[in-house]
């Protein structure tokens, strides 16, 4: 458990001491998030992310025994839709032109992407 552990109470936002993330981790996260970063950016982010994460870690001190994680912010149950095709044009198909209208690389009715090797 990361939260709480090492979080020195109400960590002051400008003075996070728990440097949990190193630059390698920053690069790993960036890669998971598919965002190319330079070394300079990684270095800058290391500090920023540690500052923010050090600060949010104060949540670890909250006693949540017996508390269920919130699921619906306002009590409400999931509605289900009828199995009807194209009942509403806004959520139905048969609008290829609209689907492809903003495509960077439309190709014969497809979206073109750099060749993928599976």
């Amino acid at each position, binding site marked *: *458990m*990361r*939260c709480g552990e090492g979080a020195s109470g*109400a960590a002051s*936002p*400008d003075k996070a001491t728990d440097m949990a*993330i190193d630059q390698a*981790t*920053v690069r790993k*996260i*960036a*890669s*998971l*998030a*598919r*965002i*190319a*970063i330079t070394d300079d950016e990684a270095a800058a*982010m290391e500090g*920023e*992310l540690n*500052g*923010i*994460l050090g*600060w*949010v*870690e*104060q*949540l*670890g001190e*909250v006693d*949540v025994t017996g*508390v*269920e*994680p*919130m699921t*619906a*912010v*306002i009590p*409400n149950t999931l*509605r289900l*839709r009828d199995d009807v095709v194209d009942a*509403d044009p*806004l*959520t139905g198909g048969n*609008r290829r*032109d*609209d*689907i492809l*209208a*903003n*495509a*960077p*690389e439309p190709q014969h009715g497809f*979206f073109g*992407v*750099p*060749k*993928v*090797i599976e």
Partner: protein
Amino acid sequence: MTDLTNLTVAEIRDGHRAGDFSAVEVAEAFNANVAGAKALNAFIVETPDRAIEAAKVADADRAAGTLKPLSGVPIGMKDLFATNGVQTTAASHMLEGFVPRYESTVSQKLWDAGCGMLGKLNLDQFAMGSSNETSYFGNVISPWKRNDGGNAALAPGGSSGGSSSAIAARLCPAATGTDTGGSIRQPAAFTGISGIKPTYGRCSRWGIVAFASSLDQAGPMARDVRDCAIMLENMAGFDPKDATSLDLPVPNWEAALSSDLKGKKVGIPKEYRLEGIDPEIDAMWDAGIAMLKDAGAEVVEISLPHTKYALPTYYIIAPAEASSNLARYDGVRYGLRDLPQGAGLQDMYAATRADGFGPEVKRRIMIGTYVLSAGFYDAYYTQAQKVRALISRDFTAAFETCDVILAPTAPSAAFGLGEKTADPLSMYLNDVFAVPASLAGLPAMSVPAALNREGLPLGLQIIGKAFDEQGVLNAGLAIEERAGFTARAEKWW
């Protein structure tokens, strides 16, 4: 003839209906103001023709006796709402040039109600920010200036900074906003206007570029409480296309407006008395308490014990949801594509997203990715959702002893552009009073209450029970009537 751009939504609606002026005259007046206010950078796209077109329809409708609820009222549309045939960017390079072939539910409702569109309003990129400094299309500048003789450009608040700036500068009588963690209320407070975030689920999220799905709510921003009620009535309503939409009738909020608070209890959360806060904020709060008492309400102290955890909770949940919501911006189907020489698919993603997203967006995606990643999910995300449940419980308990809650909207007046950009955390802290109601999905509004000694507006926030927008609007009206806030920014642009 009076300057039509000084009129409120209600005044335009009623004046048009009465034949005092034509809708085209109104649209032309606002178009002119928009065209003359480039210095504020409030609009990303101006659509004067759309405004005129709708105005002509409104005038024809009046002649034909088929007026709609908002016929003749031109508005600004935050550029987070998809507008059919008009570029929709979320203020990001990622969506520069993106022209949707669909209309968001909320904007469609407004057009159906007779509104015309003056343009697409600037905002913080993907609605991430509290000062409108993260827009790819440049900062929005508040029309307000400090009275210190200096000429510092001030933040209009964020993320709905284009909306707040435009209304305060009379570029539009009302605008749409969205509020994820204060993005309607804080900019309203910074610019001396009103804004309401309704109960989560009141306004459909369909067609609004998502930031954090469990928090995002659309709402109106306008010059006064009545206008907020009118606008909200025409934005809210059940939408089968949004699974979190509330299947409830839309009340006649405007008709039921009443500033008589006899029999109402107003809760004052003791945890919102922050140590070291600007004493002017506390003074304004106390003045607000007096105003509500004067309106007949009884004031009670309440406790929201988990208040201090609201911001850190928000800064786990919102980035987590955002990191996933923004995964669709990958350069495949729309928007920016960066394809370096010889790049494969995954390189294309990384290059596109590096180029398309601004630093704050990247920062939040990174945090969100991290807190959801293997081994950290429970410690961060699950813990945050549990604390969120506790924050929500705090409100439920508090509302057993009061009807609405009164608090400041923001811990400070508008700050200068660039003052907080170096330190993301200090920026985040600006939403300390706004975020708890967002986490609990509750209706909350900001109304202008006072000017500080620098001559800048301060806002008071009213938080209500779920579904009780009426209670919030009524308390807001009680403050509005007593605060007598008539100050406006002097035109310098």
